[in-house]
C-alpha cells in the first residue's frame, strides 16, 4: 500500500488494468463487448464480400484482397477456401457479432441501468464472460489461418463431414479448433445468462415491478432463459463431435462408413442425432438473436413516437410465447433431412404457430405509431426499417414452414434471403439504431445526425438490393454453398443477377464508412449532452451521461411503466419512471 494520493507506476498501471481491462463494472464490460463485436462485424462483412465476389465472378482474381490472402493461386478463391469463407462468415456473424452484441454489449450496459441497479449480480462472473470470448476469438481466428484451409463444414457443422478428419482433408485441425472455439462461446454466454436472470429478478429498484420493465429488459430476460436451457445441449453435442474427431467415439458416425477411401474407425452412431441436438439449441438461438432487438426497437419507437407503447402486456406475452414455442420447432430445419415425415407435420404446425406472436408484435408497433407525433431521428429510422424488414423476413418464413414448399426451397437462396432479412435487415439495423440511441448515455456525447441519416439511407437501399433479389434466386432453386453454381444449366443464366447483388453488397459494406467515422469521431468530438437528450422515460436517462461507478447518484424509485409519453398527468410530453406523482409526493428518496 502506498501513502495518500501517491501511486507508484506499478500501482497506476494495475489500477488502469483493473478499471479498463479486467474491469468488473458492467458498463466497461459492455463497451468491451461492443468494441470487440464491431471489429468482428467488419471481419464478417469482408468475408461476405469474398463469397459475393465468387458468386458474381467465379474463379476470377479478386483485386487487392485476393493476392494478400492467397497469392499462390494468384488471388483466386479455391473451392476449399470458398467453403471456409461461408463457414467463417456465419460463425463470425452469429457467435462473435449478433449474440454478443445484443446480450454482451447492450445486455451488459443496459440491464443494471434500466432496472435501477448499481451493477450486475455477479460482477466477477460478468468479467469472465467477456474474457472467455478471447480464447474463442483466438481459436476460431487460428482455425481460419490453419494450413491448408480453415474449417469448412458450414456453421452447422453437420457430421460425418465435420466429424471425420478424412471427409475434408483440408480442414484437419481447423475443424477441431473451430469446435473448441464454439465451446468457449458457450461458456461465455452461459455465464452471461445466469447473471442477467439473477440481476433482473433480484436487483430491480424499489417500485420496478416486472410489468414496469422496459421491453428491452424483457427481451434480454427471455433471451437469458433461452440461453440457459438450450445452450447446454449444444455444448454437450459439441463435445461429442470433438471426441468423434479426436478419440474415435462415433456418436454421429454410422456403421461401416467409407469416406474418401478410408474406412471409419468407429461407427454405430447417427448423423441425424447431431442435427437434432444442434437445432435444439440453434432454433432458440434464432430468437436469442432477435428478441433483444425487438425490445430495443419497441423502446425507441415509443420514445420517438412520443406515445405509449401499444399493447405492452400482449407484447410481453408474445415474447414469452415465443420462448415457450421456441423449444418445440427445431425440426423445421430438418424437413428433408431424412427425419420421419410424420414428425415433420407436427413441427410444421408448431412452426406456423410461432409466427403468431411475431404478427402480434408487428401490429402493436404499427398501433404505437398510429396517432403519434413521429420524430424522424436516426435511431427512429433504423427502428422503423426494422419493422418494415421484419415483415418481409417474417412472411418469407411461412414459405419454409410449409413442408411441401420447403421441399423445393430448402437449402436454396430463398432461405438465405429469409434469414438475412431477419438477422441483417432486422437485428443488425436495430443494433445500429440502438447504438445511435444509447451512444449519448455511453459516452456523454451525441453522434452526428446527418451522417447517421446518410448511413441509414445507403445501408437501407443496398441491403434491399442485395437481399431482396435472393428471393428470386431461391424461386429458381439456386442452391446455397456452391462455389460455382453456373455449371448447372438450370442456374447458368443467374450470373448477371448475382453480379447486381454483389455490386450492392460491396456498396453496402462501403457505406459503413459513414458509421465508423461518425462513431469514432463522436466519442472524442461529438457535442456533449446532459442526462436525457432524447427526453425519454427510462431509468437509464436519469443517471449521469456517462454514468459513474455505481450508476446512479440517487436511489431511483419507480412510480410507473416506461412508456408514459404524452400523459395528461405530466407537464411535459414525457413522464420519467422516477418522477413522483403530483398528489402523494413522497418527496425524499431514502438513502440506502
Amino acid at each position, binding site marked *: 500500500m502506498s501513502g495518500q494520493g501517491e501511486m507508484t507506476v506499478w500501482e497506476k498501471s494495475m489500477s488502469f488494468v483493473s478499471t479498463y481491462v479486467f474491469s468488473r463494472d458492467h458498463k466497461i464490460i459492455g463497451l468491451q463487448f461492443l468494441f470487440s463485436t464491431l471489429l468482428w462485424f467488419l471481419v464478417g462483412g469482408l468475408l461476405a464480400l469474398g463469397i459475393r465476389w465468387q458468386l458474381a465472378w467465379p474463379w476470377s482474381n479478386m483485386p487487392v484482397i485476393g493476392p494478400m490472402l492467397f497469392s499462390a493461386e494468384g488471388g483466386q478463391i*479455391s473451392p476449399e477456401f*470458398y*467453403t471456409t469463407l461461408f463457414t467463417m462468415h456465419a460463425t463470425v456473424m452469429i457467435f462473435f457479432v449478433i449474440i454478443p452484441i445484443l446480450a454482451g454489449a447492450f445486455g451488459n450496459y443496459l440491464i443494471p441501468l434500466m432496472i435501477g441497479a448499481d451493477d450486475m449480480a455477479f460482477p466477477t462472473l460478468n468479467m469472465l464472460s467477456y474474457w472467455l470470448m478471447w480464447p474463442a476469438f483466438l481459436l476460431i481466428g487460428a482455425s481460419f489461418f490453419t494450413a491448408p*484451409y480453415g474449417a469448412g463444414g458450414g456453421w452447422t457443422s453437420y*457430421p*460425418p*463431414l465435420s466429424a471425420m478428419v478424412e471427409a475434408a482433408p*483440408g480442414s484437419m485441425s481447423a475443424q477441431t479448433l473451430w469446435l473448441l472455439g464454439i465451446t468457449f462461446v458457450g461458456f461465455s454466454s452461459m455465464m452471461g445468462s445466469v447473471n442477467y436472470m439473477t440481476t433482473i429478478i433480484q436487483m430491480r429498484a424499489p417500485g420496478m415491478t416486472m410489468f414496469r420493465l422496459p421491453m428491452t429488459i424483457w427481451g434480454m430476460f427471455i433471451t437469458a432463459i433461452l440461453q440457459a436451457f438450450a445452450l447446454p445441449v449444444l455444448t454437450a453435442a459439441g463435445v461429442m463431435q470433438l471426441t468423434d474427431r479426436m478419440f474415435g467415439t462415433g456418436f454421429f458416425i454410422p456403421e461401416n*462408413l*467409407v*469416406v*474418401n477411401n478410408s474406412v471409419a474407425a468407429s461407427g454405430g452412431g447417427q*448423423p441425424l442425432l447431431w442435427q437434432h441436438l444442434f437445432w435444439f439449441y440453434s432454433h432458440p438461438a434464432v430468437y436469442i438473436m432477435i428478441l433483444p432487438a425487438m425490445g430495443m426497437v419497441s423502446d425507441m419507437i415509443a420514445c420517438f*413516437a412520443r406515445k*405509449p*407503447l401499444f*399493447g*405492452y402486456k*400482449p407484447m410481453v406475452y408474445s415474447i414469452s410465447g415465443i420462448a415457450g414455442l421456441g423449444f418445440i420447432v427445431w425440426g423445421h430445419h430438418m424437413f428433408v*433431412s*431424412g427425419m420421419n*415425415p410424420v414428425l*415433420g*407435420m407436427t413441427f*410444421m404446425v408448431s412452426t*406456423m*404457430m410461432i409466427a*403468431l406472436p411475431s404478427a*402480434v408484435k408487428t*401490429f*402493436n408497433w*404499427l*398501433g404505437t405509431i398510429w*396517432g403519434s*407525433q*413521429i420524430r424522424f431521428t436516426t435511431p427512429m429510422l433504423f427502428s*422503423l426499417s426494422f419493422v418494415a424488414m421484419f415483415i*418481409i423476413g417474417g*412472411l418469407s418464413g411461412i*414459405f419454409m414452414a*410449409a413442408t411441401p414448399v420447403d*421441399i*423445393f426451397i430448402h*437449402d436454396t437462396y430463398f432461405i438465405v434471403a429469409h434469414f438475412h432479412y431477419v438477422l441483417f435487415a432486422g437485428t443488425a439495423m436495430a443494433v445500429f439504431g440502438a447504438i445511435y440511441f444509447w451512444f449519448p448515455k455511453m459516452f456523454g456525447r451525441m453522434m452526428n445526425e446527418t451522417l447517421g441519416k446518410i448511413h441509414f*439511407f445507403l445501408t*437501407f437501399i443496398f441491403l434491399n438490393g442485395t437481399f431482396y433479389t435472393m428471393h*428470386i434466386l431461391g424461386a*429458381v*432453386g439456386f442452391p446455397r*454453398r456452391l*462455389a*460455382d453454381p453456373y*455449371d*448447372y*444449366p438450370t442456374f447458368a*443464366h443467374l450470373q*448477371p443477377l448475382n453480379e*447486381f447483388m454483389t455490386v450492392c453488397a460491396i456498396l453496402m459494406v462501403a457505406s459503413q464508412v459513414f458509421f465508423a467515422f461518425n462513431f469514432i469521431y463522436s466519442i472524442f468530438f461529438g457535442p456533449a449532452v446532459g442526462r436525457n437528450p432524447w427526453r425519454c422515460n427510462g431509468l437509464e436517462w436519469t443517471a449521469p451521461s456517462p454514468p459513474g461507478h455505481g450508476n446512479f447518484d440517487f436511489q431511483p424509485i419507480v412510480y410507473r411503466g416506461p412508456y408514459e*409519453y404524452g*400523459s395528461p398527468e405530466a407537464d411535459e410530453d414525457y413522464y420519467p419512471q422516477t418522477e413522483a406523482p403530483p398528489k402523494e409526493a413522497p418527496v425524499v428518496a431514502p438513502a440506502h
Partner: protein
Amino acid sequence: MGRYWSMLFLLIPILGVLTFVCAIADIWPMNGGAFAFPRNHWLPENINDHGHVIDSLFTFILYLTGVIFIGTSSALFWFMWKYDADRNTQPIRYTHGSHNLEIIWSILPAAALLFIAIYQMNAWADAKLRRPTEVVANREVLQKPFVRVTGRQFEWRLRYAGEDGEIGTRDDVHLVNDLHVPLDKEVVIQIESEDVLHSFFLPNLRVKQDVVPGMTQFTWFRANKAGVYDIVCAELCGWGHYKMRGRMTVEPEDQFKQWLAQKFEEQEKSGTTPDSGE
C-alpha cells in the same frame, strides 16, 4: 424531412411487389433489360405430375403473404406520412392498447396459419409418406425402386435393376451421374449415401431428399416431359460440393429399356463392374 422518409418506405411495397411481378411475368428488367438479365427468373419448368401441388401451394402462400405485405407496409408508410411531428398538429392519442384489437389480430392470423398448416398436409404426405404401390400376385405391395442412387464425394453412383427388377443381382447396370427415367411412369428411386450427407435435388421435379449414410430412403415421381435435366447436390458435402452434378434423361419407356439393355451389354463386354460387392 419526414415526408421524404415516408416516401422511401413507400418504395418497399411498390418495389417489393414489382420485383416479384417482373420475375413471374418475365418482363423488364428480368428479360434482357438492365444488367443484361437473361430470361426465366421464376420456378423452373415443372415436369412432375405431383409437382404442381407444390407449385400451387407456393403461389397460394405468395399471394396470401403478398396481401399481408402490401397491407402492413402500406400502413407503416401511411402512419409515417400522416403522423410526422413536423406536420401533424393533433395531440397524440394517449392510449395503451386495445383489448378488442389484440383479440382480432391474434385470432385472424392464428386461423390463417393453422389453415395453411392443415392445407399442406396432404401434399406433404403424398410427397414423403405415400409411396406408390403395385399389385403383385393379387396383393398390393409397395412399389420396388428401379434404380439405387448412392451419393459419394463427389458423384452420384447409379445401380439400375436389370431385367429381373431387383437391385443387387448380377444383371444390374452400374453407371455414374447418368440417370435415365421412363416417361409418364410412376417410378420409385432408392437413395443412399456412402460417405457424408448429400441431398438429391431434382429442381424440375420438385424433389429433394437429403441422403444420410446408414439410412435407406425412397423418393418417387412421374416425369411427364422428355428431355435432359439437372441432378443437384443440395447439401454441403465437402470442397467439391459444387461439382457434384448429375444428369437426368427422361425418355419414352421403350427407349429407356433399349438404352438400359445396351448399357448392360457394354458393361458385359468391358467386364468392368464397378465393385458390385459394395
